[in-house]
């Protein structure tokens, strides 16, 4: 196999890094197989590259399909979206990282919030005197402190809201990726 074809496959493989290894190898082998078929039919290497199009675009087609297929929130999915983002271009460079940071941060904060609230509540009920526990909570004014139970419920509520906001940002991110993925569009060719 000539160098430009190898280069093509190498570029594709780099773009497909977030795809599990076995699947990635399979994808590359399939494209390689088609290259050999074309060579056997007497198609020149340059024509093969032209036919397959930009290796990034071809990789993007696979990634776009993966994003819309997988369900739920997983680290792997974040990686796929990141790789996809690097291929999408300018709007993706802003929107995807922002949402990509906001979504997990909000989800984590939403989970941490009630935990801290609980720590303070327990601290107050049992007078444990845990260090820094007084810094947790909702600050109203120097002279006014909330009832511990009311405060806990408020914290819980804020936690839930943060969590929901995180989920919403995640959904938006996935929606955005689907929109720009081009897998839907490219089929129009």
């Amino acid at each position, binding site marked *: 196999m000539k160098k430009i074809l190898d280069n093509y496959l190498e570029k594709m493989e780099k773009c497909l890094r977030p795809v599990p290894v076995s699947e990635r190898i*399979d*994808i590359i*082998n*399939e*494209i*390689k*197989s*088609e290259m*050999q*078929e*074309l060579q*056997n039919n007497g198609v020149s290497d340059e024509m093969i590259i032209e*036919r*397959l*199009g930009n290796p990034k*675009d*071809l990789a*993007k*087609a*696979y990634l*776009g*399909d993966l994003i819309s*297929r997988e369900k739920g929130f997983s680290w792997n999915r974040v990686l796929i979206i990141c790789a996809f983002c690097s291929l999408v271009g300018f709007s993706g460079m802003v929107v995807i990282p922002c949402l990509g940071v906001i979504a997990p941060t909000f989800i984590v904060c939403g989970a941490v919030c009630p935990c801290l609230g609980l720590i303070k509540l327990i601290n107050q009920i049992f007078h444990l005197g845990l260090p820094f526990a007084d810094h947790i909570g909702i600050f109203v004014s120097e002279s006014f402190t909330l009832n511990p139970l009311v405060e806990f419920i408020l914290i819980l509520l804020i936690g839930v809201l943060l969590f929901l906001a995180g989920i919403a940002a995640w959904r938006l991110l996935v929606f955005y990726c689907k929109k720009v993925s081009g*897998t*839907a569009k*490219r*089929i*129009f*060719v």
Partner: protein
Amino acid sequence: MNIDDWKSQVKRGTLEFCILLLIKKQPSYGYEIISTLDQYPIIAAKENTIYPLLRRLLKEEYISSCWQEGTEGLPPRKYYSLTAKGEEYIAAMSVEWDNLLNAINEIKGEKE
């Protein structure tokens, strides 16, 4: 008149059906599928459409795949064949397809 736009919508809606029908006829590999579809401009599609689509059909278990070693100068080929689930899917699609054709024919007939 934007006939190309409409044509691409038709293609989008029917490509999956066509690919499954091709694989049902005989187990086939990617390049062969693309070449066959190429003979019909209305459903011809490029690698960046067909391969991800095949991968999705594979994940949804409508088709299965199997690599065959290359022999006598032929490269190794990844053959796709239809699963039982795929058979059911095609059967259901065929019913709806006939419904669509009947509907179009009837509506056309009424207008003439």
